[in-house]
């Protein structure tokens, strides 16, 4: 089929996911959610905290991520991220931990507007998953 492209999610210490039969990916790009289909223009962007949804032949998969960089080129989607969790086996305690860290950071006074925005996003997304 011609509607498929390749996705690769890489962590600093390992390759997290690789799929060849992806039809659509929705990423939480910094300036809003973005759906990527085959033959998208070459793109570089970065992520805010949110949910990555991958639609492929084998079904739909969702991942929670806190940050990352996205590159799309020649029907190859690469996502570089240091924090990504599959929603399927995302444990309650882990969510609580992340939420706690985010809320503590939110209490700090000297954070910039941008990081405050990111933290608010993080809390919101985590609460919806919860």
């Amino acid at each position, binding site marked *: 089929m011609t509607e498929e492209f390749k996705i690769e999610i890489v*962590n600093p210490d*390992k390759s997290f996911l690789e799929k060849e039969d992806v039809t659509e990916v929705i990423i939480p790009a910094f300036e809003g959610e*973005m759906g990527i289909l085959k033959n998208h*223009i070459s793109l570089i962007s970065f992520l805010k905290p949110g949910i990555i949804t991958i639609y492929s032949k084998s079904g739909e998969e969702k991942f929670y991520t806190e940050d990352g*960089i996205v590159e799309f080129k020649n029907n190859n989607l690469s996502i570089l991220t240091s924090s990504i969790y599959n929603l399927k086996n995302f444990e309650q305690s882990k969510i609580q931990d992340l939420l706690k860290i985010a809320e503590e950071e939110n209490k700090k006074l000297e954070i910039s507007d941008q990081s405050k925005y990111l933290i608010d996003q993080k809390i919101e997304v985590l609460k919806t998953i919860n």
Partner: protein
Amino acid sequence: MASLDDLKKRITSVKSTQKITKAMKMVAAAKLKKAQESAEKGRPYSEKMNNIILNLSNGISDKENAPKLLSGTGKEQIHLCVVITSDRGLCGGFNANIIKKAKSYFIKLLNEGKELKIITVGSKGNDQLKRVYGENIIENISFKNSKNTNYFDAEKVGKVIIEKFEKEEFDVCTIFYNQFKNVITQIPQAQQIIPLKTEIIEEDKFEDNYEFEPDEDEILGNLLPKNISTQIFKAMLENSASEQGARMSAMDNATRNAGEMVDKLTIEYNRSRQAAITKELIEIISGAESL
């Protein structure tokens, strides 16, 4: 000549040392495999990161206003050197090689009248450098408690560096580490990470027209600090593979030397035992003759 008892004791002590070095070699070999694997697994990330930055810095429209992490502060007066070593000893020339490389660089800098600041990662480097460059060391970071090299440790180091850069405490940053070539060879490396050295791609090779969202500057601003952490992480992975490799070959040598020593001591022991027997025999025979 040492008495039989002494020789016996020495042989046992060398043998038990040999047991220890042998065990350490085995452990290092097992850890090396793991470290090598994680170094290999970590490569795609840093390579991709590098590629994206290359594409970005080539696509950047306004070179004058490029982020300072990329273009530098315009000065080269204060140098920050990050020396990454191990936390444990008994790994041959591993730490000594990095230190040697770093020291020769320090001397060059100081001769040129530059200001020098040092951050040591790993306690061994700190131990060796603080005697001569104690005043220059501004921070010592050690990860004795973490079992494996992980990204969060690298991120911590990266954050320290970026914080200092934003406070304009230095102009150029160089990291020192051992690059893993194979088990016997580790190459000490000096790599400049701020300002970032990018290879310039020729215009015709650079054919991709990327869409950037948000614009290049903002992405670069977000990406470059991450790249620092990534580079440090890469260095740490290479370093830990190198450390295990160096330790393995050092312990292999030590085991072999101990084996040689045991052989030598055993010959000496047998000889003196034989001598003692001969002496006793002579005494008996000459005693019998005199009757």
